[in-house]
């Protein structure tokens, strides 16, 4: 027996190692399958192992990230200052323009809110977000997952939606005290409920093994065209409704899942170059106070614009009236002593009167039913071709 063990020691160790891990895998697989469409559930020990792996790597990643930021800050603050003044001016202009746009969008949102309230919709607005920086990745193209520098101490929880200014990027998976895993939407285990913006067709986006984002549960429909925007539907309970997901890039039949089509989406956010993200930590059913303020401002500015326009228009009429009063034929007092009516500008007399010319048509009381039309109603000359 001892000689057998000694002879096959190497092979036995390998078999034992592989067998143990296979059993471990078998124990994890049901948990992963049970959680399809939701958060993959890890056992306590697996979570502990993940925690320790992250605990070893993330402090170093944080260090590297901080050093990189310092170098970048030094470069941008002291070295690369050319054209800063022009850039600053351009950015100020951009901010002003965006604020105007935001105000008008807020007003649109307010109107939309009123309509939705009428229709009985329950809309969720983003109430609070936490900005975080990406400090590392999973390091594997089989798992699209990144690490951010905020955790439960900052109010983050698993399954919270994460976005950039361009659109959604994914949701939180494991959250530790100062770090969290962000599962990107192009990971095969990720998904989100979406709606096609113009056709209003609902679907589910999922990641593929190749790192693409696809809608795979829709049958062929001639209304779906490349270039159509895709937004979140809010039906998954993770992403608030109306956030940009991306744009349809291509539509092709899915040979493995007939009669469905594989609709490839180009994500709105650049998932390969994520640096800063926003974690949506809270939603609410009404507009946030700042957006409400912007909406009120927009409404007030719209009213002011209407007042201003009416003032300008009344000024035009007053001017005309003033010009008209300059004419000697217009009396200030009526013939019978009553005040004169406001003067209405009259059209100039036509050079070539026809039946449409004011005053050329006889009064209705002078017309006889069934009688031929009068000469005045006829055009003076027949059209010549």
């Amino acid at each position: 027996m001892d000689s057998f063990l000694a002879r096959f020691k190497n092979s036995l160790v390998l078999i034992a190692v592989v067998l143990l891990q296979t059993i471990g895998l078998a124990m994890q697989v049901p948990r992963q399958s049970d959680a399809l469409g939701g958060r993959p559930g890890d056992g306590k020990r697996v979570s502990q192992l993940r925690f320790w792996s992250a605990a070893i790597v993330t402090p170093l990643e944080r260090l590297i990230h901080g050093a990189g930021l310092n170098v970048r800050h030094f470069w941008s603050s002291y070295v690369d200052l050319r054209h800063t003044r022009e850039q600053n001016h351009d950015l100020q202009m951009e901010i002003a323009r965006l604020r105007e746009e935001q105000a008008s969008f807020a007003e649109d949102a307010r109107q939309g809110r009123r309509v939705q309230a009428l229709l009985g919709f329950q809309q969720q607005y983003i109430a609070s977000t936490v900005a975080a920086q990406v400090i590392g990745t999973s390091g594997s193209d089989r798992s699209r997952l990144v690490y951010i520098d905020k955790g439960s101490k900052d109010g983050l929880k698993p399954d919270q939606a994460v976005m950039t200014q361009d659109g959604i990027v994914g949701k939180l998976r494991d959250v530790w005290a100062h770090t969290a895993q962000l599962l990107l939407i192009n990971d095969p285990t990720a998904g989100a409920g979406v709606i096609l913006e113009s056709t209003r067709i609902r679907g589910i986006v999922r990641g593929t093994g190749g790192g693409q984002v696809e809608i795979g549960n829709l049958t062929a429909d001639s209304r779906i065209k490349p270039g159509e925007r895709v937004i979140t539907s809010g039906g998954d309970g993770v992403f608030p409704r109306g956030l940009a997901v991306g744009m349809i890039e291509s539509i092709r039949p899915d040979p493995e899942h007939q009669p469905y089509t594989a609709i490839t989406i180009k994500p709105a956010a650049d998932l390969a170059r994520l640096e800063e993200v926003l974690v949506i930590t809270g939603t609410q059913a009404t507009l946030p106070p700042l957006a409400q303020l912007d909406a009120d401002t927009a409404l007030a500015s719209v009213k002011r614009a209407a007042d201003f326009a009416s003032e300008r228009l009344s000024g035009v009429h007053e001017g005309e009236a003033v010009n008209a009063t300059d004419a000697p034929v217009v009396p200030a007092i009526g013939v019978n002593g009553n005040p004169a009516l406001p003067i209405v500008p009259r059209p100039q007399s036509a050079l070539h009167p026809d039946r449409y010319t004011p005053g050329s048509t006889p009064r209705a009381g002078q017309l006889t039913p069934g009688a031929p039309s009068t000469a005045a109603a006829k055009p003076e000359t027949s059209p010549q071709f």
Partner: protein
Amino acid sequence: MAEHTYTSRRELDQYGFHPAVTLLVPVAAVLLQAELPKLWGRFAILDLPLIVVIFFAVSRRSPIAGALTGTFVGLFQDGLTGLPLGINGIAKAIIGYLAASVGFTVDVDNVINRVAMNFFFCLLQSALLYFIGRFLVADARPLQLWHELLRAVCNTVVAIPIFYLLDTFRRRD
């Protein structure tokens, strides 16, 4: 006149490493692997931990040490991904075992052998990951042969300078 060279049994002796090197090099490999795709997403095609596992296995020429190194590095790598723990652990344990076994039979200091070894083991790992995914965790993603070939080429190109760099930490037992 042609110059003849030979590799003696002495040169084929096992090498050892300082414990700090044994500990820090795999951690550095996993850390770099996690950081590089942040700079450019395509760097995710590399597998630096695999290169480290192959290097330690062929240098130590101990199948048990190779299998255990592969297991720990693979599990560490799995811990950072969203994949079930053990996918990389199993694949790298097998690679470590086989690499150590190969180390007995070929001159692993020869650059051509190193190229062939890295290319082959990288392809083998892709195949192992595919089969583990397919039959153990019901992962239905297809095997992209050209992508895996490209991965093997890229890893081989990166592995050669890394091997020469890590050679400086070797010490004869």
